[in-house]
């Protein structure tokens, strides 16, 4: 199965969809925000984020240009 990111992004979602239902959150960064959301029974997935390319700035810059 080809994963989503190979398809074109979901352009033209129903506007204001964000305000019409409880948020479902992907948390990238401070874990405390995910913990708070989880405590409120909000669907949340925390990303164990770390700097891309182990912090190598050159590679990170290159990646940012090549990234989807």
């Amino acid at each position, binding site marked *: 199965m080809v994963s989503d990111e190979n398809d074109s992004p979901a352009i033209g979602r*129903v506007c204001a969809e964000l305000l019409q239902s409880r948020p479902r959150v*992907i948390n990238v960064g*401070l874990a405390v925000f995910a913990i708070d959301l989880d405590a409120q029974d909000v669907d949340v997935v925390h990303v164990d984020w770390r700097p891309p390319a182990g912090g190598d700035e050159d590679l990170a810059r290159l990646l940012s240009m090549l990234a989807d």
Partner: protein
Amino acid sequence: MSVTVNIVRAGVFLDSVVLMQISRELTAIQGVEDAALMMATPANWDILSDAGLLDEDTMAGPGDLLVAVRAQDQAIADSTLQRAAELMERPAQQNNTSQELRPLTLRSACRQLPDANLALISVPGDFAGAEARKALRAGLNVMIFSDNVSLAEEISLKREARDLGLIVMGPDCGTAIIDGVPLAFANVVPRGDIAIVGASGTGIQEVSCLIARAGEGISHAIGVGGRDLTEAVGAISTLTVLDWLERDVATHHIVLIAKPPAPSVVDQITDFIRSSSKSYTVCLVGSDDLALPDNAKLTTTLKDAAAAAVKNSKGLEALPVVQQAPAAGSYVRGLYSGGTLAAEAQVVFLSHRQPVLSNVPVPGAGLFTSERANHIMIDLGDDRFTRGRPHPMIDPAVRDEPICAALSDPDVGAVLLDVVIGFGAHPDPAGHLAGLLDRHGRSGSVVIASVTGTDEDPQVRAKQVSVLERAGVVVAPSNADAAELALAGLKIG
């Protein structure tokens, strides 16, 4: 009449230390006269028998573990045995916790939560743009908590979001309440029909909490970032939110909190409001220079904005009497974790014709450089202070040194502080402050604070207030009131 019960666990071997801990815990239970966990050897059999801990029907061999309890009644004895069984299981349970593999990338997180609709990004600013872009391309709305995101990046992200029918909240946006769910730095406020759209976090927090304290509620609160109303960004996110709110049936009134917008975006905003079916309060902290349509009211402080938004603003007016000794110094030093709160304090001072300096000056205030003999309002959440350090709302210790310096400054008569609670904030900022004041000792200056929050917040506003009051801090009902009190204190002197 005491009751003795035994259970035998054949072939169960628990570590000696664990056996001892369980014995201790059982003996400490109310109503338990004696308890022991021992290997059921003949020698121990005698010991337990002498201690009245042996049920004569119990059968066990030397390789078995015997749990023996003597308690006041059967119920206590049984529940104690139950507890013993639980405690004996505990190590096994700990072992069984399988480490859940957390996704390392936004991409794999999306696979885990395919119907996600929002990415909350709080990675260092240098990386936030890249993560936000990935989120947008995965069809997610984005809230960028991170600061230190470049203007060019912000513009490019917001344009991309607009094209995708999505929104970028922030950057440097600490607060949102969406469909009743507080995100990042936000307070637990009742649901209601007032929406708040603001440049930055603490302004939204203050207004939403004041509205809650006046007995009304919030439909949504959205932070759009401090630069959204600049000419460069062109109010992209603000206009998106206003558009969404226009169609949101839960919202009847909208509070827009902003710094004075760029002339080029003023028209867009006022045109939108004019054509809107809803009513508005526009809070331009520090400026009353804006012509608005009839369905909008202009205010210059957060407190006035809250009062204008609610139907009955009685709950917002009580001011405490200053009980402190007259201040010795002549100037007020405001040390803020919230930028909009620092701006509001300047507005209050300017309205009393008191000149004031700040690192984030409102129109009419001067830019603080290094001169001290002035009223000075510092925003410690400003990018310049937070690069590489936690925000003062997460780690109040960031503010310790400036507070001590202000308290030791003979020119300073009153120290003005904000204490912001709610999700995301420090678990006990008042306690931290009280501890600091206690260590620093009393000095001539008055410490005046307000607590932005509600009693439903995890830290509980009432408790924070009482901790501060016990520490000798004068606590005002709102940030604007705190600034008023600081001036009043000086006037008494």
